[in-house]
Structures are given as C-alpha cells and as structure tokens.
C-alpha cells in the first residue's frame, strides 16, 4: 500500500504545565486506509506518549472519540486521512466543552442532563415478567427507533450554537433521548418528562437551522426531536388556556 505523509496540527493542553492550549505539529506517514484516530495512535505509540485523547471501539459505536477535525465535529475513528490530504489536518477538542487535557473534554454535565430527562420506561402499572413481553408492532418501533440510535458522542453539542452560549441547555442528544421514551408505546412517562424537556428557554432559542442533525454520525436527527417537543409544549400550553382548571 502506498504511503504518503500528512501533517496533523494537534491541540495540546496540560493544565499544570501550560496556561493556555498550544498547537503541536506532527508529520505522519500513512497508508490509504488510515483514519484520523490511527494517526493519533501512531503518535502516542511511536512519537509522543504524552498525547491524551479518548477512544475504544474504533468502529463508530462507542462514542468516545469525538474531536474537531478541521473545525467540524467528527468521530476520529470514522474520518479518513486520505480525504484531507494533501492539506494539513487541524485536530482540536470538541467545541463548547471545558477541556480537561489535550483532546479530552469534560462531559460530566451531559450525564446529569441525561438523568434529568428520565431516560427509562415509566409505567402506570408494571406487567409481571411471567406474562411475557409488551407487544410492540414494527410500526410502533419505527416511531422512536431513530431517536434510540444515539451513541452519546457529543458532536451535536459541539455544533449547537445555543449550548455554546448557555451550557445549562439540556441540549440535542438528551432531548432526543427523553423524547424517544415519550414515543415508545410501552411508556407512560410523558407528563413526568414535560417539565425538563420543554421548560428551559434553550429550546425556544433553538432555530430550525439544525446544526446538530447535520453533524450527527448516527442520523438521530435531534433537531426534529427539539421541534416536536416545542410543538407538544405549545399545544399543552394552549390546551391549558382553554381547559377548565380541574382538567389541566
């Protein structure tokens, strides 16, 4: 396989050593089938053991390896060096997040948000396991399936202008995951999720631009979830105006 050499300009930041992030350049010989992550692994193994970043599955499903690649949020295990060659590649930590070290961001806030949308089945009454599964038709499955494909990679947050200004915004992935349960025929928890999904001013600042859906590697379309939550919330609000008090 032919080898060419590409330059990676990688953000370095070690909190106790540097006051601000710097950029380090590496010239990497690469075969045709290397992804950006392969180049980072090559650096770590052969050139500079101190470079830090997250990765694991190298097949686009664990969601660990999100980075800004030439300014766009990408899974570094799913973008090929050959597609950028001969230009240099800029590799930076995901935008909009605090940086812990080098390419590692702090995503602990997302874990709290995820919990806040109650991403689990809420039932009025549980059916005993001995009575078997809840039946769900392929159509009922289709209703929520694409919202369940989220790998929590955070690319959508890195692309989201609202989250960029207001880190308190629940944000695209968490809203899509909460909404996924609302759409699940087995779930009765819509009312319990209403407050956190629809309440924050963030969703009203969200425009139809849908940057989040554009960058999502799993076609979750979180922007659609946000728009639908808006519509549902507005409907509830209108309903609350026309309904007599007791029935709200």
């Amino acid at each position, binding site marked *: 396989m032919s080898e060419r050499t590409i330059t990676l300009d990688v953000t370095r930041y070690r909190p106790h050593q540097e006051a601000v992030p710097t950029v380090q350049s590496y010239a990497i010989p690469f075969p045709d089938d290397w992804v950006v992550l392969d180049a980072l692994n090559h650096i770590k193994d052969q050139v500079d053991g101190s470079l830090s970043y997250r990765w694991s599955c190298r097949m686009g499903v*664990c969601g660990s390896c999100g980075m800004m690649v030439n300014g766009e949020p990408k899974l570094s295990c799913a973008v090929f060096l050959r597609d950028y060659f001969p230009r240099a590649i800029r590799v930076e930590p995901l935008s909009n997040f605090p940086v*812990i070290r080098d390419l590692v961001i702090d995503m602990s806030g997302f874990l709290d948000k995820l919990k806040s949308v109650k991403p689990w*089945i809420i039932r009025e009454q549980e*059916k005993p396991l001995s009575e078997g599964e809840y039946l769900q038709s392929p159509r009922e499955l289709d209703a929520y399936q694409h919202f369940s494909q*989220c790998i929590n990679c955070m690319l959508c947050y890195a692309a989201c202008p609202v989250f960029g200004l207001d880190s308190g915004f629940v944000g695209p992935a968490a809203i899509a995951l909460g909404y996924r349960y609302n759409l699940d025929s087995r779930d009765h928890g819509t009312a319990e999720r209403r407050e956190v999904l629809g309440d924050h001013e963030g969703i009203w600042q969200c425009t139809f631009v849908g940057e989040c859906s554009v960058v999502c590697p799993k076609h979750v379309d979180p922007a659609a979830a946000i728009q639908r939550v808006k519509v549902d919330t507005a409907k509830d609000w209108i309903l609350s105006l026309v309904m007599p008090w007791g029935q709200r």
Partner: protein
Amino acid sequence: MSHEISEHDVIVIGAGGAGLRAAIAAAELSPKLSIAVVSKVYPMRSHTVSAEGGAAAVTREYDNLDAHARDTIFGADFLADQDAVEAFVAEAPHELIQLEHWGCPWSRDADGRISVRSFGGMSVKRTLFAADKTGFHMLHALFQTSLKYDHIVRYDECFVTSLLVEDGRARGITNVNLYTGEVMVLAANAIVLCTGGGGRVFPFTTNAAIKTGDGMALAYRAGVPLKDMEFVQYHPTGLPGTGILITEASRSEGGWLKNKDGHRYLQDYGLGPPTDTPTQRKMELGPRDILSRCHMQEYQKGHTFEGPHGHYVHLDLRHLGQELIDRKLPFVRELVRNYVGIDPVYEPIPVRPVVHYMMGGVHTDMDGKTPLEGLYAAGETACVSINGANRLGSNSLTECLVFGARAGRNAAEYASGMGTPTSNPLAALARDEQHRLDSQFFKKEGGSERIAAIRTEMQHAMEEGAGIYRDASSMGATCEKLRELRERFSRIRLEDSSEVFNTERISALELDFMLDVADTIANGALLRKESRGSHTRTDFPSRDDENFLKHTLAYRTDEGPRLDYAPVKITRWQPEERKY
C-alpha cells in the same frame, strides 16, 4: 500519605452488560444498600456496545430448554459445566424479557413479538436481536435504566489497580481517578468483577482497545485461579486490517462464504450440503471454531485471496438484496461502506478469522462466587463455565445478564449480612499499593523500553504460539518470549509525568495486566495435550476425554502460573463425538 476511604456495601467493577446488570440486581435487593460502579470508561463506552448479532434464549413454542442446553454443551465440546448450563438456559428467557420491560428496542415480528434469528451452532431460531446493534441497545437500555436508582453511585473513568485482600476476604479496591491522577480507595463487603475479556493480548482482534483482561489479572494477583484460559475463540468473519467484526447474523440471514474460485468451500469440510437458504448448524451456520479452521485449511491449499492485510475469503450478501440488508443488517452495510469502501449490496465482503472472545476467565461457581470470600465475577471476565472449549455466538450477551444478575444479587445478600464495611485494615494495604504504583509507574525514572514495542511483541508472540493451530514448540517459544517481555517490562520508559488524564500510565498498567493474562493462556495451552473446541494442536489432533475432560486452573506464583485441574460437571449429556 494516607488515603480517604469511601465505603459502600457492594462495589461493581465494570459497567458493561454484566456490570450494569449486577448493579441493578444489587440495587433492587434493597434501597438501603450503597452500590458503587467503577469503570475505566463511561458506562456507554463499554465493549458490550459493539456486540451486533443478538442474545439467545428459549422464547418460542417450537423450542425447549433442553435443546438450548444441548446445543451449548455440544458447542462447548463438552467442557461446559452442565449444571451451570441448565441454570443459564432456564433463566435466560426471564432476563431477556426483563430487558424488554426496561425499554430495549428489540426487532419485532408483525404480531408485535420479539423477533428471533438463527445463529451458529443453534438448532433452531432462538436469538433475539435489535437489528444488528443488539449490544449497543442492550447496553444503553441497561445504563439508562440504572440512572433511576439513586443508590447506585458511579465512579466513571476510574481505573482499578488492585483488590485489597485482608484476612482471606476481599474488602476493597484501589483505583486511579483519571481526572486527578489520585489513587482512591473504596471499601465494601462484597466486590463483583465485571471487567470483560482480553482480546487485546492478540494483534488482530474484534475487541475494543479497553479489552485488556484487567479483571482477570486483578483476581489472579489476589490469589484467585483463572480457569480454562487456553480457550480463545476466533471469529471467522472479521475485516482484514482493522479486525472490525462482520456479525454472524449476516450468515444467519443467508450470507455465503466463498473462496477465491467462488466456491462455498465449507461443504468440503463435512458441513454440507449447501442449501440456498440457511440450514441450522450446517455450512455457514456451523460453529466458529470449525469455520475458522476451515478458513486456515483453504489458505494452506492456496484457495484464499491475498491482500495487503494477508489472506481472506469472501462473505457474499448480494443475493439477500438491499431491502433485507437495510432492515436486518444496517450496521454491517455502514461498517463495510465506511471501512472497506465497498457496498455489500453489490460486492462481496473480504473477511478472515480474528480473535474474538475468551472462554476462560476468573473461576466462579454458578452463583458468581470466586474462591476468595467476598469476591464475585460475571460476564466475559468470568468462567462459570457455560462456554467450555467454544462459546456459541449470542450466548454471551445472555450470560452477562443471567450471571450478572446472579452475581449482583448474591454479592448484595452477602454484603447485607456483614454489617458496616470496615476500612481500618485497608489504610496499610492502600499505602503498599500506592508505593508499588509510584515506584513502578508514576514516579519511575529512566527506563528505555517503549510500551508499544513490548505490547506489539507480546501480541505477535501470542498469535505465533497460541493462534488457531498450536504445537508444543511454538507454544514453548511463546512462553519463553513472555518471560523475556516481563523482564523488559520492568524497564519501561514513561514520558508523561503529569497527573491529569494521563493515558500513558493507563496503557502501562494495562500492559502489565495483559502480560499476566497472556502467560496463563500460553501455559495452559502448552499443558493441554489434546484438541478440543477452539484449542487445536497439530501435535495432539484429537480430543482426549480420558486425560483432559477437566478444567485448567492457573494460580499465580512468582515463577509463572502453577496449573491445576478440576472436574467438569456432567448432568445429563454424556460426551460424544462433536460432529455437525
């Protein structure tokens, strides 16, 4: 320096399928228990996320528990413990329904029931699936469900370095918090190891980077034996180069394996006759160990293709058509398009055997208990054993649930009976561990060996000596090489002395664990002078029930593993020749 010690009732190490199931089982036993879940990656990054094909259980009228048990035992080449297998098949349906109630988006038949598909070595369709992302959906359903229990306390991105054992009991752990670099100490009355497999001791594997056998080494160092480590499963269909798995489901949906002449070669190895639509346990639905050996024989006969990453054959899905591929195998299509640059709807997929799964692991009984009091294990890191000498595909996700739940429940029951965990004896143990970490890793000066170099040499030695075909001389050379690498490891050079998110340290600690795991695999293989399941010796080509119908137990000593053996439990299925 003294460590702050956090106390819990139960510590679960690992947050994959087994660990999360164990944590929920413990949490459901009593809201009063405090359950710690410690994981070196965020739970949803755990390797379970990569599992594609499905999870087996008897859920249909045409099926029965004995059939599932027999397939499993037969597939295991009679090295499975049959009482454990019987418990496994009996509890499997319940566990998978439980996961359905927790929201797992299983694929459905028109009538709303969970769909089932065929899988290698299974005599009927009994593998439940969520398209070809079963592990992903199971893991996320478990993780999201676990969030509703406030008494499950997570320690994300914390790397466990040792088990603290006092007075013959497991009482706590030490772990490095990646964010701060600090060594933390957790105390508990019961500990459950759910740390997954260790495919990364080999160079070419379907396994994620985090699968470095840590839990096996942790237990081994704490005096617990590792069982049947010589049994390593090769999966016949990985992508050359990356090792990314193309799921067996692609064959159960009707894919064909063809050599370079376009011939469905499996019929030449007693797996025929070839049929157009798949027949259970025949041809492409034969078990993995046999299919991987067939590939190697085709290679030796010169019937395989040769590419930049070595020999390969074709997995042909074209006749299945785009509609079926998109509905049942969308991830396969996505992976092949991204990583091979071809579309399986129009072109056959290049595949070759690749290290996939470790049948062996921490010795436990059916309740997940190890010989060390207070220590439990479940999932791929454990060896109960239901997988014996060869696991059947789609049994291991179910195993994570069944034995994860058992281990979690038993650990919680044990812990509740023990009163408040005492942290007194742990301070001294923790100081010793801090000293070991500082002198060997964190404050180590000098050294000349690169981590990556030792790792790569270990991986190649394992492929050479403990690959699909093995013999005494190549295995002996591998054992020798591993001794050399262990010695060189003491001279590794660490370039990064910073505290925050120091992944170089983690790589070094993982390599340290992998060297132990590799040693037990190679030594176990050398002394098992027979061929059984995945363990194929050219110098001892047949199964030898008289001398080797027994489990290997490897105990750690300073001179390397000491091997002992334990009987296999036979209940109702007497060993017979394994022919498909």
